[in-house]
């Protein structure tokens, strides 16, 4: 239909099985089908994605990105330049707390005094960790130490005994449970909150204003890719195995933990904001960076999540 493909720069997290839709869309040529020429920009965590959104327009390096809902929220509340909107959901569930396979660690209460790694502070997994701790009547402060590192390093660190456990996205959880690494699932995120929001697609307001057509195309592709995963589970699994260096067993187990979605569950998202505010002293609806007329989480989600592109799916 169009002669020259539209260029768009899409951020994603390196080796994140949650964002399989992005990998599938690339692999299957869905973007090309929509007439898009995609530059894929890898990031190590959602915070780094947000930092990229926050750079001045002239030097901003991404237009749209896959990232966790938590860093998107956290930055939106705390950084004046984080003017993004959430456009679609990517997955629910899919995180887990892996600890060393040791009888002394059985419940959330046993985490007191342990060294736990997270991919970034105030990201999705850090937030889930807070919820897990809450179940055991603990907070972050009760941990021996909370350490930030890339998910691939967590596996090395667990094997070397540098940490007692970690919380990450799949497939890094399942990778930590091999015999040599010696970890076990303590909680999956769905254990503490079934069908919690996780990764989303967000874009900067500047870009949404400037090029809504491209935004629509990206959402179209995301929808198509997500549907494709659900319809072609085994084929999707084999692509995941290849892209993320997994065995069939690992891929099966990891994907079982993830709910691939595209539509926004506004009720859950509102609950997310409530819990975030409750567990995080840094986050408040009073933030000077959001419009002053917003006073409740429902109002905020209404403002922050732009469902119009999903609604316009063809």
């Amino acid at each position, binding site marked *: 239909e169009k002669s020259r493909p539209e260029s768009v720069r899409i951020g994603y997290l390196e080796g994140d099985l949650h964002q399989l839709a992005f990998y599938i869309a690339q692999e299957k040529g869905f973007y090309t089908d929509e007439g898009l020429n995609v530059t894929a920009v890898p990031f190590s965590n959602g915070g780094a994605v947000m930092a990229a959104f926050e*750079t001045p327009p002239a030097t901003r390096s991404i237009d749209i990105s896959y990232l966790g809902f938590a860093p998107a929220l956290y930055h939106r509340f705390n950084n004046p330049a984080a003017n993004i909107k959430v456009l679609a959901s990517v997955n629910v569930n899919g995180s887990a707390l892996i600890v060393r396979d040791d009888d002394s660690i059985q419940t959330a209460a046993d985490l007191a005094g342990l060294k736990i790694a997270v991919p970034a502070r105030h990201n999705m997994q850090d937030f889930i960790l807070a919820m897990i701790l809450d179940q055991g009547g603990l907070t972050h402060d009760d941990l021996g130490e909370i350490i930030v590192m890339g998910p691939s*390093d967590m596996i090395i660190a667990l094997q070397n005994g540098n940490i007692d456990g970690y919380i990450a996205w799949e497939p890094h959880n399942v990778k930590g449970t091999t015999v040599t690494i010696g970890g076990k699932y303590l909680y999956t995120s769905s254990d503490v909150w079934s069908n919690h929001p996780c990764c989303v697609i967000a874009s900067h307001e500047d870009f949404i204003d400037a090029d809504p057509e491209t935004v629509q195309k990206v959402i179209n592709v995301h929808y198509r890719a997500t549907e494709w995963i659900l319809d072609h589970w085994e084929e999707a699994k084999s692509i995941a195995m290849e892209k993320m260096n997994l065995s069939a067993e690992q891929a099966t187990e990891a994907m079982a933990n993830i709910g691939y979605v595209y539509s926004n569950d506004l009720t859950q998202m509102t609950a997310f904001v409530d819990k975030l505010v409750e567990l995080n002293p840094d986050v408040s609806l009073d933030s000077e960076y959001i419009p002053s007329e917003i006073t409740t989480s429902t109002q905020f989600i209404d403002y922050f999540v732009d469902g119009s592109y999903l609604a316009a799916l063809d």
Partner: protein
Amino acid sequence: MEIESLSNRKSTQYLIKLGYLLLSFLVFIGVWALFVVIINEGMNNGIRVLPSPFEVFQTFFHLLVTRIDGNNLLDHVGASLFRVLLGVLYAFFIGVPLGVIIGSSPLFDRILRPMLELLRPIPPIAWIPMAIITFGLGILSSSFVIFVGAFFPIFQNAYDGVHRSNQVYADVARSLGATKVDIALEITLPAIIPNILTGLKVSFGVGWMCVIAAEMMGIDVNIGGIGYFINYMKDVGNYANMMAGMLMIAIVGLGINGIFELIERYILRWTPKKQTEEV
């Protein structure tokens, strides 16, 4: 009267110097503030992304006492310094003897030096991934990376020192009855001390650079360190904290330089004065 006018002149000169320093500092703050304005107003349409110098100073003092995730700025910078110290220490105790041995033995020189020359061009930072997968995320990894960075300057300086140390000193010592061991201890060693000091200084600089890179990549699961801190603050979007961390780095760097200058002034009191200096 003569003396008084002299002391007057001295204190005047002192005041002038101080004035210039102050002026320089003001220019510095001015340039910084201008930069912030350009970035915020010019490039970000008035959104306050970068904090003002004043905010950074305020945050800096706040962070000296306030703990974030259990550590304040001093804890972080202390952890970084410790890593550097350890790595440099290893480099010293391996680099100096190796430099002296390879520098004085043509056989070792021929066999070992080409091997070292092959390893030298790999920057220490390129060893970070390797260190992580072999030594895990702990002090072993971080000090290994710093060791790699610190080793070559120390080794090379010791080596050069031995090579260039004047044959004549050894001759004279021999004429005065010194044995080989005497010469090694009483001539070679003191003669290469300036070189070793230079090597140490460079090593500290490189080590300081490496530790920040390594910490940014999360090489050590214990206290993050100042490099970890500033990268972390970037990721969570707290740029005032990030810049306060950079300020801390600058201050510690200045401190290290100052200490080295004092050490040099004492240990090298027998060397002729350098030409330049004086601010």
